[in-house]
């Protein structure tokens, strides 16, 4: 990474080095310009920021605790802390961004909201924010994901959202993003698209990162208070990359702090069997951004596999691509099997059932611990709770409920 003061990223054209940008149909450019301007204004608007902070506190229940994991610490001979995003209202970090963008939609005077969802957590978060703020909500979700995450589909409907099944392509998250983009191109004048991860065209990667940075800001203050020093490692799962960038970003200038992301290693190394963009992907343009993409030699985007719907995505947020190239962050693979072992480990040793996504971070704790000295401080982001996954885990393990 750059020496001295890191420069402000993204740059004015929405790039993190060669990654990012706005690769969208012409129709959307004015909407992206409008959001960029509105977001820049909201960032400086004290009333907006206060409203955001107040809702995070009074509605979401922030700050979330930083929990010392005594048994895990004992097992790995490291000091392991858990950032408890699972304790947020709606059960995951996604609500931070949904509230932020929901408030922005009010500023943009857009009454209709669309969103994509993979695991359903972002869909639930958006449906919740819309109910709270009085906005109409439509959520696109791949039909394969609807099957895997049936309880979340019903939760969204209970919250008054319309869930629209997506049957094109691979019936998963990337196809839901395509459909959401198609809806947005059609209804751009009345509609704001609450993109759920730190990806897509500028300014979404920046804006989502900023709304999620509350995770890292809290964690930084909490660990300094608890341990009197900065952590050695931050560890988080990386799908699109919003929980991880939210944790990492406030530590960007703390060069002694290592960032480690856990990608979905799925069930094998062949294309289509995993969602590990940094070991099987290559430079490309996909869904509005330049980044690493799991694609074939003809630039066709490949299907992915992960036990976790939230990590099942063929590309990754552009800031992660940049951090990987500049070696500011490193990314490891966690297979389905290790993720499931991670879920059991956290459940049995700490009394916390993590989401399958977050279980990928726990699943590689042994590998991460081996990269550090004894007594090192490791913060693991528990990005969501596992309630939504209980039935899927049972199915995966052949247990009849």
């Amino acid at each position, binding site marked *: 990474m750059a020496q001295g003061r890191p420069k402000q990223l993204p740059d*004015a*054209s929405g*790039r993190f080095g*060669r990654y990012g*940008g*706005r*690769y*969208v*149909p*012409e*129709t*959307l*450019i*004015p*909407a992206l310009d409008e959001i960029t301007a509105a977001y820049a204004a909201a960032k400086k608007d004290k009333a907006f920021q206060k409203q955001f902070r107040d809702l995070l506190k009074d509605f979401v229940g922030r700050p979330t605790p930083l929990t010392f994991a005594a048994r895990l610490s004992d097992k790995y001979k490291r000091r392991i802390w858990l950032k408890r995003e699972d304790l947020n209202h709606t059960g995951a970090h996604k609500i931070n961004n949904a509230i932020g963008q929901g408030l922005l939609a009010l500023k943009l005077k857009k009454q209709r909201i669309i969103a994509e969802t993979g695991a359903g957590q972002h869909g639930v978060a958006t449906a919740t924010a819309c109910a709270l703020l009085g906005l109409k909500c439509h959520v696109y979700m791949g039909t394969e994901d609807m099957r895997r995450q049936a309880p979340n589909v019903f939760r969204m409907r209970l919250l008054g959202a319309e869930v629209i099944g997506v049957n*094109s*392509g691979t019936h998963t998250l*990337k*196809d839901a*993003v*395509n459909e959401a*983009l*198609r809806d947005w*191109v*059609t*209804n*751009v*004048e009345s509609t704001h698209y609450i993109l759920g991860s730190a990806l897509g065209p500028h300014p979404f990667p920046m804006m989502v990162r900023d709304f999620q940075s509350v995770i890292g800001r809290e964690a930084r203050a909490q660990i300094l208070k608890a341990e009197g020093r900065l952590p050695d490692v931050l560890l988080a799962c990386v799908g699109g990359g919003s929980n991880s960038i939210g944790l990492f970003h406030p530590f960007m200038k703390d060069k002694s702090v290592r960032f480690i992301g856990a990608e979905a290693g799925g069930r094998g190394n062949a*294309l289509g069997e995993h969602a590990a963009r940094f*070991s*099987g*992907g*290559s*430079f*490309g*343009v*996909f*869904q*509005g951004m*330049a980044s*690493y*993409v*799991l*694609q*074939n*030699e*003809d*630039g*066709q*985007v*490949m299907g992915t596999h992960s036990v976790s719907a939230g990590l099942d995505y063929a590309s990754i947020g552009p800031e992660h691509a940049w951090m990987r*190239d500049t070696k500011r962050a490193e990314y490891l693979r966690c297979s389905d099997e290790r993720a499931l072992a991670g879920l059991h480990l956290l459940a049995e040793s700490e009394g916390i059932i993590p989401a399958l996504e977050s279980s990928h971070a726990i699943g590689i704790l042994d590998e991460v611990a081996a990269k550090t000295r004894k007594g090192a401080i490791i913060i693991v982001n528990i990005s969501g709770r596992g309630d939504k996954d209980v039935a899927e885990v049972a199915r995966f393990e052949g247990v009849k409920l």
Partner: protein
Amino acid sequence: MSSGSGVRSPGSFKHGRSAGSEHKTASATLSEKTPDSGHRTPDRTNRITRRFADLRADGKKAFVAYICAGDPHLDATVDLVVGMAEQGVDIIELGIPYSDPMADGPANQAACERALASGTTVRGVLDAVRRIRARTQVPLLFFTYLSPVLAYGAEKFATDAFAAGIDGLLSLDLPPEEGPEFLATMRAAGLATVCLSAPTTPLVRKKMLMRESRGFLYYVCRLGVTGERAELPADLAKQVKALKSVSDAPVCIGFGISSPEQAALAASHGDGVIVGSHLVRLIEKHGKDADLVARVAGRAGELARAVHAVGV
């Protein structure tokens, strides 16, 4: 299969704000007959540019047809293009099939899926273009998302496409400011780089797009993805007038046009009309029929005649 680990070099696909100056030095009109100065000059007058000049001389508007290459297979694509050219279609847009066509509606999505299922690759499409060129000189334009072009390598793609007989390129997901060097590479190879404008585009941006576009400007006449619609939008005349106030470069109108009547009406506002999904649906319906080419080319001919009947 992927090339494995590591980042594929994107060739000339680089990003930089410095490229803005290239915009300014690039000459200002769409109808110019010489490629941008400062680049290698291909020794061929662009067929798209020439076609618009000829049509203007005859007092006619252009009819542009879109089909997806490889739908239902590349042999059919070759015959469809030749058939449509014989029926009087002025310019043909060939879609390069892509796994995630986010700006396309259901008809074109399904066409992409059929084309990919039939094993269509960029190399295969280029080979089909060579076969087309042995039979017709109709102007040909690639209509594509960036991903397949980047994977092939932008510079190699530009050279190979031009050598095969392609005259232009329209990148659906590349607003010009995102890839000035990419566009310069295409132009240097001799390809006319067509820009899109939309109903949401503000005037200052319309001006930029008119300046940036080569061959013609594609006016997406309504919000939304590709696909047939019953009515023409109410603001069509006003929008095209705003574009034409910038320069007299050709403006073609597309998105949702499906009948000879609509085509004629749209043609009266601009310099040409583009029909895609409507023809693609015919291919979907008759893809396996022996008279596929006759049906699609016949319908394209009806649309072309309706457009040609509109005086300038």
